[in-house]
């Protein structure tokens, strides 16, 4: 069964702007699905319609077989939403936010308390349970929203940029949590601007641009289409001019750091043969996109392990 099925969904806002131009999308049960696209593409609009926050202009949405127009409450019960913007009561305590949410989903007080404790502990917020939410840091507020979305154990969890503005350590723990929840059977739809995040977590992907789906396939199929990969090589000795090797685009970032665009068809062996022949020693090799992140993680982890 499809966790989510969208057909010919259109949205024209009251100012006449057409944010969605008839999109079709299917997300299978159990999937970890990435919904990507540049700013203003229409991701949040689509999510808004799915979660009853935005009225669609036309088209249909079905959540676990429940048509949103005909069986809205059943559809809603299957869904948990982590919105892009903070929207909980800023004057309430963390614990009350979750307890109220559980109440809205019709859970008994006892079950609500148990689920609240479970979700707060899972998001590492249990010791903040009596804090007024306004006093939390930005990253904590995001985690409150994730905990809140999971309190009724939804079958479909939609997260609209959950990791925006969250430090890398917490982001990693969110990834682990999302994978965990997904492995336990919850379907996840994730929106993010960190592409490596989507790459490492998601099995299927759709890309929206200007209100249209421009890509919808599995992650591996999409990555296979990647023609060129960028690597960064640290060198033992400084170079003055970049090596000239046909088929590869090589630049010197600094005298001892070289960036290479490697076409999929060529691979790395030819490059290394050439470097060895010219006696250029490579100390390390990294994928360009994850470089800073890795460096940062190493620093953070080094620091925390020293504290402990």
């Amino acid at each position, binding site marked *: 069964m499809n966790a989510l099925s969208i057909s010919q969904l259109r949205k024209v806002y009251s100012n006449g702007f057409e944010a969605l131009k008839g999109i079709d999308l299917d997300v299978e049960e159990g999937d970890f699905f990435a919904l990507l696209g540049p700013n203003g593409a229409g991701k949040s609009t689509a999510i808004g319609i799915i979660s*009853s*926050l935005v*009225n669609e202009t036309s088209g249909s949405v079905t959540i676990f077989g429940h048509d949103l127009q005909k069986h809205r409450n059943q559809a809603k019960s299957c*869904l948990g*939403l982590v919105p892009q913007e903070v929207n909980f009561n800023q004057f309430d305590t963390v614990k009350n936010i979750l307890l*109220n*949410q559980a*109440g*809205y*989903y019709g859970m008994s007080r006892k079950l609500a308390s148990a689920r609240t404790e479970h979700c707060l502990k899972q998001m590492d917020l249990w010791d903040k349970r009596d804090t007024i939410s306004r006093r939390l840091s930005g990253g904590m507020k995001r985690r409150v929203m994730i905990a809140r979305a999971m309190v009724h154990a939804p079958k479909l969890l939609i997260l609209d940029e959950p990791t925006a503005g969250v430090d890398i350590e917490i982001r990693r723990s969110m990834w682990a949590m999302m994978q965990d929840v997904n492995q336990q059977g919850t379907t996840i739809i994730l929106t993010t601007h960190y592409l490596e995040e989507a790459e490492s977590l998601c099995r299927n992907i759709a890309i929206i641009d200007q209100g249209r789906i421009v890509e919808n396939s599995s992650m591996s199929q999409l990555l296979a289409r990647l023609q060129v990969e960028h690597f960064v090589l640290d060198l033992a000795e400084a170079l003055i001019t970049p090596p000239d090797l046909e088929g590869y685009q090589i630049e010197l970032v600094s005298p001892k750091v070289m960036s290479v665009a490697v076409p999929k068809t060529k691979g790395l062996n030819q490059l290394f043969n050439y470097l060895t022949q010219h006696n250029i020693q490579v100390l390390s090799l990294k994928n360009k996109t994850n470089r800073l992140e890795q460096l940062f993680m190493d620093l953070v982890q080094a620091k925390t392990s020293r504290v402990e």
Partner: protein
Amino acid sequence: MNFTAYNTIVVKEIYRFLRIWPQTLLPPAISTALYFLIFGKLIGDRIGTISGASYMDYIVPGVILMSVINQSYSNVVSSFYSTKFQHNIEELLVAPVSNVVILAGYITGGILRGLLVGFVVAFIAMLFSEVVVQNVSIALLIALMTATMFSLAGFINAQLAESFDAISLIPNFVLTPLSYLGGVFYSVSMLPSVWQIISMGNPILYMVNAFRFGFIGVTDVDIQLAFMMTGGFIVVMTIFSLFLLHKGTGLKQ
């Protein structure tokens, strides 16, 4: 019907107005004590009686009901507007909570605050006056209906309001004048006849008089008409609130 959700909203609302009691419960207690002291005691002693009741006894019901009106109205308008303003309402819109439950939850909160303040003011009135309620059920019923009606008015105002200014407009320019002109402090029979006729278009006049009838058995208007009119307002405003919720006015894009 999702009763757990209803209870959750009601408990949240009660907790809210009790938590900020210096803003919600104290001011009406102080201002009505001043009304009783100044109008009832100091000035009232020189006025004599209206329809056989001392001036103090005459104004007690109106002052109580005026507090009920203001409090039930302002509870719902400020609570629901800030819920909307903080986007907090999205929690309810995403969850399987029907519009009826949302409306009922907030209206119950407003009624409870209105009636609670009503009792506080009635208690204060007992310090100044020996008035005995003659018909408890009429007094309670009209107080309940008035609280319901003005909670609904607050809800509609909150849904339509696009700024904080717009939620103080109605209390300042509609509620307060209508209350003062609604026969709280005088009998319409004391007015020139043309103003008597105009006053009959003021719904608050009917509620105040029905409530006064419950207290001291004196009224300027037909009690049945007062109940029918208040009931009519409640029905119309409930339908309108649900219509706005259904359309998502001010809540959904």
